[in-house]
């Protein structure tokens, strides 16, 4: 666990070769925490946009349930399903990520929206909860998605608890 902390890429810089190799080895090893393993097993992701870099397979390989949507209507139906997704992944084809998908996901369920960027400019797009820069290694972006979903679930859990408390307080009142 210490090794992992030590060599995990710094959020402010790109991964170097050596770090990349070490991270790859660690990611492929069976040292994942129980919590993260749970995340991967249970997380559902909607992917919007053409997947020309085979990320969908990587996500599935990591244990995510991934649904590919080709229209806003499909996303909307997923958002209203009995088992809503944990995140929306947008493929930034030529830098034209669908804003509608972002607004929809954030508006309906406050889901984290993750962008796979294809240009340097989209790195700084604040509409997204997570932007994966171009040529980021799969180990790195998988880890970041995992973190994002975990954090999102945690926040939503807290939100739900607060909401329940609010309801109880309202009932008592």
């Amino acid at each position, binding site marked *: 666990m210490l090794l992992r902390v030590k060599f995990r890429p710094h959020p402010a810089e790109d991964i*170097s070769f050596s770090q990349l190799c070490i991270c*790859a080895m660690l990611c492929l090893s069976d040292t994942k925490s129980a919590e993260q393993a749970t995340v991967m097993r249970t997380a559902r992701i909607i992917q919007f946009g053409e997947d*020309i870099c085979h990320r969908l397979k990587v996500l599935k390989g990591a244990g995510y349930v991934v649904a590919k949507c080709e229209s806003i209507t499909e996303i909307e139906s997923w958002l209203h399903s009995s088992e809503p997704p944990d995140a929306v992944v947008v493929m930034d084809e030529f830098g034209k990520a669908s804003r509608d998908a972002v607004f929809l996901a954030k508006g309906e369920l406050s889901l984290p929206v993750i962008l796979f960027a294809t240009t340097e400019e989209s790195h700084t797009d604040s509409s997204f909860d997570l932007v994966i820069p171009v040529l980021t290694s799969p180990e790195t972006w998988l880890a970041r998605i995992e973190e994002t979903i975990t954090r999102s679930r945690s926040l939503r859990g807290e939100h739900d608890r607060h909401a329940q408390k609010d309801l109880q307080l309202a009932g008592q009142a």
Partner: protein
Amino acid sequence: MRVANTLLVKTVDSIDSKDAWETVPREESNFGARAHMIPVHEQRLHNLKNPPGEQDTTGVPLRELLAQAPTAIAVLRGSDYRFSYVNDLYMQAVGRTETSDLLGRTIREALPELEDSGIFQLLDEVYRTGSTHRKCDLKVTLPKGSPRKSEDQYFDFVLQPTFDLSGKCEGIFVLAVDLTDRVLSRRAVEMSEERLRLAQEAAQIGTWEWDPIEDKRTLSAQMHRMYGTDPEASDQEIYRFWSSHVFPQDWPHVSLAMAECQRTGEMDLEYRYDHPEMSLRHHHAKGRRMMGTSRFFGVVIDITDRKWREESLRDREREFRSLAAIVESSDDAIVGKDLNGTVTSWNPCAERVFGYQAEEMIGNSIRKIIPPELYPDEDRIMSAVARGERTEHFETMRIRKDGVRIEVSLTLSPVFNELGEIQGVASISRDISQQRRVEKALNTSERLATVGRLAATIAHEINNPLEAVMNLVYLAQGSMTDAEGKVFLGQAQEELARMALLTKQTLGFYRENKGARSLTLGELVIPLVAVFSARARNKQILIETDIRENPTFVGIPGEIRQLFANLLNNSIDAVRDHGRILIRVSAANEYFGEKRAGVRLSVCDNGPGIAPETRKNLFEPFFTTKRDVGTGLGLWVSSNILRKHEGSIRVRSSVTPGKSWTVFSVFLPLKSKAAPAAPGIV
């Protein structure tokens, strides 16, 4: 007719014959004297006596009277006109000294020089007709002076026939008055007057007389022409005409001056005159009272041309001052030079552009500011201008006083003198060095933008398949059960990571999207050396890393990584097979300036070295020594990164065969204002 004088001549034989005496009135001669010639019956004048009844009041014999007469007198006898008497004045008139030269000889023998004068024909006429003949201002060419020289002389001649008792003409009494001096004087006066008249006419000077008491004026012909007045008109008509044509605005001071001059006796005024035919003229009247009279005499000079010239001169002076002001304040260097290239004028802008003061250049050769290799061009251009050939403006090089060469845009124009001859050349120079720098920067900027767009397109096209491969290899590695296969896929991932990094560095014009943070060079150098290790292995290059100190400094990791990658990449390219590269990181102070504390990264290699002429261009964009593979942007980008981090870079190199080496030494301060977050380096 009034008889002023009477000359009586009587022959000895007829001395008692009163009838023989007659008085013949003679018209007034040229000089106003009156003489009356009497027919003479005597042939021998030496016997001349006073006529009967007349008293010799002087007591002087008539012969002596003739001898002392103020006229030249000769008596010719016979049809061949033989001299029987001549007086001294006659001798002088004909240029003879001895009476024997004349007496007893015919006039044709004695005075052959009169052949073409017409005298002989006149004598014949007088002898034949018996009538007196007078000839005024007859020009005769006679010898005169010592040595004798033929000169034109002028005489009033009277040729009076003499008769014998039978009334037959037997000779001619010749009376000649030498008028030469008077004629010449008169002609000189006439010539002088004519010259004066012509001069007055040419100079447009008219003369006038004015008697204010009688209110009467007399104008010269030229004066009438100048006033456009009729000489035949009355004085009052002329005055009215003149006064009505004086320019109305000038009339008050004209009339005042006329009144004033009667008090002072002097007149001096200028006024404009509306000439009926020559439009507006300028007159200058000057005169004064004649001594002892009330009359004024003066001249009027037409000074119109002078006024025009003065006005024209004033206009030219104004124009010249205006031009001079333009030249003085011009933002172009304006230089005058003669055809030998000697500077004749040097405006303030020329002082600013070339650094020489006017006094340093005027009188010296223009070559002072011309590069020696351009002397032939200058000579050729000056010759062309001197021949009157037109030269288009051109761009050339000049040398400032401080030795710096500047690019100038030059225009040469011939300068003409009053005769229309080319006497020099005016050159207008504009320093276009700044313009050239801007153009170069713009050009560079455009090229960079083009390259940037191209690189972005290529990067995008490469990124997607590269990332796809990265993902697929990742998936393959996960599903690979064979140990050796896993190793191979690991190596593939290693190469892919290197490709990804190189793509970012070379094609992506890497834009760091994260801000500056504390970091060490060591943490960047070691992984990068690993990335480049494959290339180094291929060339069997030994890369040694010596991290002596590894101080923490503030910087943008991605940019510092790119800076180091550029240096290391260049060294690997430069070093031959089996070469060496030493990378050293140490704490240091900067060499110059504030000597700030920082960290120094040195990349040394034993490659062939960089020639001095190449070294000075190393950090220029698009400058590359790797023609086939280099973009020429690596060191330029590196220098920009350093500027952003307030760092510096130093290059030392040796090209000595067998001992060649190169060191790029980068200094980064521990603290800098480097790069807040966000902005990229391109």
